[in-house]
């Protein structure tokens, strides 16, 4: 098939655009049947979803039966924010030939500011109750979003760091099924770790 000039130009512009984000939207369906839209780029922050998109299984929307709507919207918010950040970083790096020292400094300042912005976004995203935090962890794990998993796990760790054994049991809903002797033995072995 002979390529018309119009075709040629569109295919060449596609080649240029290839490295940048496509504007395709992906539909994600929560466990309670709610649909959410996300850009393909954001959705691909989830390795699980990325594979599905690449395998062409995402055309009708991706059902996520183990992620409730409330959590899915937070996950998408995270992905949107971090995908945009990754994109900006790439844009800065795109033309090293153009960068002179001034540009570098400006870029550094800009990205330092962005980093702060990202940090406070992350902090407020995980400033939630335990149940929601656990749900985020489960979702991030299932969807294979490393950054979000690290973030949520770190938050839980920070929350429980100085807590007592009883408080941790309460948080994780764990029954104390030690025998008296077992419990004494473990406590004794790790006596230095306790504050009392």
């Amino acid at each position, binding site marked *: 098939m002979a390529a018309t000039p119009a075709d040629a130009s569109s295919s060449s512009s596609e080649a240029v655009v290839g490295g940048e984000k496509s504007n395709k939207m992906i539909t994600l369906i929560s466990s309670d049947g709610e649909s959410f839209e996300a850009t393909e780029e954001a959705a691909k922050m989830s390795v*699980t979803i990325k*594979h*599905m998109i690449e*395998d*062409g*299984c995402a055309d009708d929307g991706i059902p996520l*039966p*183990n992620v409730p709507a409330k959590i899915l919207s937070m996950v998408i918010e995270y992905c949107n924010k971090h995908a945009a950040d990754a994109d900006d970083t790439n844009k800065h790096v795109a033309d090293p030939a153009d960068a002179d020292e001034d540009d570098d400094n400006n870029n550094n300042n800009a990205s330092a500011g962005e980093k702060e912005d990202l940090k406070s976004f992350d902090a407020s995203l995980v400033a939630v*109750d*335990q*149940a929601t935090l*656990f*749900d985020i*962890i*489960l979702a991030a*794990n*299932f969807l294979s979003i490393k950054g979000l*998993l690290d973030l949520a*796990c*770190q938050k*839980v*760790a*920070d929350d*429980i*760091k*100085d807590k007592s*054994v009883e408080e*941790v*049991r309460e*948080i*994780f*809903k*764990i*029954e*104390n*099924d*030690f*025998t008296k002797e*077992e*419990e004494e033995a*473990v*406590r004794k*072995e*790790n*006596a*230095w*770790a*306790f*504050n009392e």
Partner: protein
Amino acid sequence: MLLRLIRYRSSIAAYAAEKRRRRRFLMDNGGLRRRRLKPSGAMEMEGKSSAKKKKVRKTNPPAEEAVTAAAASLLTEALILEILSRLPARSVRRFKCVSPAWRDLIADPAHRKKLPQPLAGFLYSTYQGPDRRMYDFHFAKVPGGAAQPVDPSLSFLPSHRYWYVDRLDSCNGLLLSRAHKFPSTPFGDDDEPLEYHYIVCNPATGRWVGIPALPSVADGHRVIARLAFDPAVSSHFHVLQFEDTEQDKYITGMTIYSSQTGAWNYRESRLPEKISLFAGFTSVFFQGMLHLYGLLYPVNTDFDAVLVAVDMEGQVWKTIPVPSGGLSYGMMGVSQGCLHYAATPLAPGEKKKKGKKKKHGDTTTVWYMKDYDSREWVLKHSVSYDELCSMTGGEYRVAAFHPDCDTIFLDSFGADTLASYDMQHRKFHRIRSLRKNKAAIFLPYVPLFSDSFAGADGQ
């Protein structure tokens, strides 16, 4: 493509099945207790074992509780491990008491790579003879450490290659040693300089790396080598060899090796003052700087001690004054994320002879730097010589800091005992006897099981 779809669907199914099984495991306490009483020995507390348990339902908790319970019960062991791996060692040890499942999860050797380890003990040396293999090496275990003892003989090093390996420094699980080659005569002519090169090894994994030898140190020069390594920041390490002159006895510069570049580079000292380093003291790697203990040169009767800090490029050299403790024996360390310093006064008898009255004359004081950038020492604890003596029954000095809690380790003067002192509860606890003729230095050892240790294996 179809395969992926099948895998996806089946992973969802597996996830749902896991969800059901997990809920049973964690909420079915009735079933678990019945298992415990079985004499058959089928005592596995791990949820993996069997899924065939009767569902014993508790009375329905309030809605919110149920939500948290549901979410919490779904956390797999891998996810709990992810959370635990981000805690300090002390919290991880404490949470061994949460449940048998958590205890086993934390104690499992397979998870040591991920979890922060507690202090295992101290490597120390005893002076054993006038020949050039002067020191023997030992390991003093402390309570709360991992079950495995450390083999101070470093038997994984090729003994046929090295005549004598001495231990110079430890840092976050790695050990710096100087490996001496065999002398040409059986007992080694005392004047013959022994060839050596540095070795960095990980006693927990047996992995070791030889470092290219430096040209021999010029006559009259003294060297002190120390190790800098922080796996949390980078898998690469640095070896810093400080040099001073026999004559002048203050630091003139250092040669620094980077495992990343594989090269040694010399850096002249940029210290504002002249400082003499103590060879017999441990160093501390903290905030990317190596800290050493030194004295202002020329050394006067006031023994003005100071900490020297240098970065890994050899560009930033700082001195940090230590809290004035009068004539005392100083010790620095890192505990719970802060730089600490302890001053043990010299025997009061000696003080009286000097006729000087200092503020903390006969008190052992422990200080820490809440904020490293402020360089301000905050007094954490003080205990009088008399009180300590009455507890210990003898004279002790501060030998080391526990990295994870407010406990210091004490070394007796001549009584060959290692002890600990809990600052919070003012409690003294004798740990163990040490071998005779020990040298002053105690190298704290916290095992490193992860693979993050740059460099090729053995050379």
